[in-house]
């Protein structure tokens, strides 16, 4: 680099001397290695896009096979309360309901706790407490979900059963899976919210203190609303995570589609069902096999919808400070 600039300067000097020598070549030099690297990086980016396209295509194709099947009625698919592909019962409600229930329980845990942790970390914690708490939370996020699943089954469920009674809480139940899923999602929500809170400019807080607000008032009435877009995004990412979470519900929530609103009874979520069915020996041509792609497509649409909503929210509620 320096060599090049030197030569440029030298030739410039020569020009200034007025000597009418040959003009400098200002055209871009060809750099093959640079091109190669650029191409490689582009290929990496393109690969991820192509993968996504491929997944959507495959999901759509197999799901179309399912919806085109004469045994499948689109109306019944969305309103039926029984899912048992073996006997041609295709109502997605029990699976959808279980997914929504576990996610709701999870968010019930993760949102309040996550916000509290985030507010504590960004506003109250001493640097020392922060330096301990934050890595610990991140460890929580790094535990494999299968471990969480067995934690739910062997710790959370017995605990719920000893609190509410053996006969009320079934061994597999959505509440236990949801609670543990809440713990899983907690670090995600807390760290994203904390980032949002920390990004609020100091001047806002100082202005609030200047007007006589207490620390709590400042946090709740000034900082929190100012960070709302980031916090809303955190919540929605958390929900997507809960909807897509598989291992915990597969282990702890139950192994049979069951349309129930009682969180202490067993029910199977969409992801749990896909895992259980694809683990067996479905032949590729069967409608059962295609049906799991239809469920997959539903899941994909749900998370896609959530992502779009989250982007809207981020744009809508974004507060811009200089």
């Amino acid at each position: 680099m320096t060599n090049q600039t030197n030569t440029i300067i030298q030739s410039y000097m020569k020009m200034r001397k007025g000597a009418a020598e040959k003009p400098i070549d200002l055209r871009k030099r060809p750099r093959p290695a640079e091109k190669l690297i650029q191409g490689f990086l582009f290929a990496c980016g393109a690969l991820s896009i192509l993968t996504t396209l491929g997944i959507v295509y495959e999901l759509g194709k197999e799901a179309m096979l399912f919806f085109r099947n004469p045994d499948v009625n689109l109306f019944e698919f969305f309103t039926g309360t029984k899912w048992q592909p073996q006997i041609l019962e295709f109502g997605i409600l029990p699976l959808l309901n279980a997914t929504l229930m576990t996610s709701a329980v999870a968010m019930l845990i993760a949102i309040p706790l996550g916000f509290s942790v985030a507010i504590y970390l960004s506003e109250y914690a001493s640097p020392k407490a922060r330096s301990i708490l934050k890595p610990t939370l991140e460890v929580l996020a790094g535990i494999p979900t299968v471990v969480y699943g067995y934690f739910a089954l062997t710790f959370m469920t017995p605990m719920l059963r000893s609190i509410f009674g053996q006969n009320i809480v079934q061994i597999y139940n959505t509440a236990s899976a949801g609670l543990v899923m809440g713990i899983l999602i907690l670090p995600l929500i807390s760290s994203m919210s904390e980032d949002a809170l920390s990004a609020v400019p100091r001047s806002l807080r100082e202005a609030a203190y200047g007007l006589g607000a207490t620390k709590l008032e400042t946090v709740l009435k000034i900082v929190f609303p100012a960070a709302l877009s980031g916090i809303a995004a955190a919540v929605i990412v958390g929900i997507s995570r809960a909807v897509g979470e598989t291992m915990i519900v597969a282990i702890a929530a139950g192994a049979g589609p069951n349309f129930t609103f009682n969180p202490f009874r067993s029910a199977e979520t969409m992801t749990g069902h896909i895992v259980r069915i694809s683990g067996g020996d479905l032949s590729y041509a069967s409608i059962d096999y295609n049906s799991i792609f239809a469920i997959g497509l539903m899941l994909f649409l749900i998370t896609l919808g959530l992502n779009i909503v989250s982007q809207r929210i981020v744009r809508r509620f974004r507060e811009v400070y200089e």
Partner: protein
Amino acid sequence: MTRKSYAWLSTLIMIAILLTACGSPASQIPSQEPQTTQAPVQTEEPVPATQSPSQEPQTTQAPVQTEEPVNTTGTSLLPEVDPASVSGNIITAGSSTVFPLSERIAERFQEEGFTGEITIDSIGTGAGFERFCVNAETDIANASRPIKDEERTSCQSNGREPVEFRVGTDALAIVVSSENSFVENLTLEQLALAFSTAKTWADVDPSFPAEPIQRFSPGTDSGTFDYFVEAVFDTDETPILNAENIQLSEDDNVLVQGVEGSPYAIGYFGFAYYQENADRLKTLSIEGVSPNAETAESGEYPLSRPLFIYSDATIMKQKPQVADFVDFYLTYVNEEILDVGYFPASEEAMKVAMQAWLDAVGE
């Protein structure tokens, strides 16, 4: 300078990619074939099927082998196998019920000197046949029911002719939690009710408590499910799949935990699995017959079923280790089977299986 390092980097990356691409298959090449010298022994094997009952062991090893006290069942029609003299791999897949038995036999085969690799995948009877017939990947299919006609057809269209070997008998255990004190015996009709329309136990029998039944069943892909449906619902799976509160899982542990979890739960699986969990669960008698060795073998217990392994004559000839393994299996299965948790097949059934082996190899 920078340009040079970029070039270096990219060549390095390219080399790394190439290496990873080519490396993995290369590393899988099995490195063990020291026994080429003994191979001829194997190929000479064809034993004249008709005159074999005198169990004259084969060719070179004869002087030593004849003295050996043969298996305890005493009725083996098959030539003695020396596992150490064979090599190569044996690939089996299929029923999760037969799995522990095959695993046990495979372990013994290896303990007695077999140096090759034996793969046993526990994927369910149907999947086992799919791999054996459709994909033609496996040498042996483990099955907890006889092969279906359409499976046989798909085998034949792939040039495979499945040969059946009976290896034992399994009994389905109908289990409830050991905390359950009200059920001891069910009739087949009551059992069908309990796994279909009955909402509470009182619907099964008025003397039972009016508590909802929690049902646990092996998944629809398992041979155990097929067998249960066949025996209890006359092969119509609609009632059981329509039952409320039913949980289906291929993982027997899920079932054990579920049944154990409530006195009002009921489930079923292979007797072997019950024995492993006998302290936590309780079996029910069916039609007044409790499941045990005699009632299963005699067929008196209504929910007993045969266990099989399937192979193909061509494979057994091309891969002598497969023929030897099946031979070994049939010869020693009765010494191991009770320990694994199943019951021996009848003597006649074993004779038929051994004859099938002789026919397959002798052709």
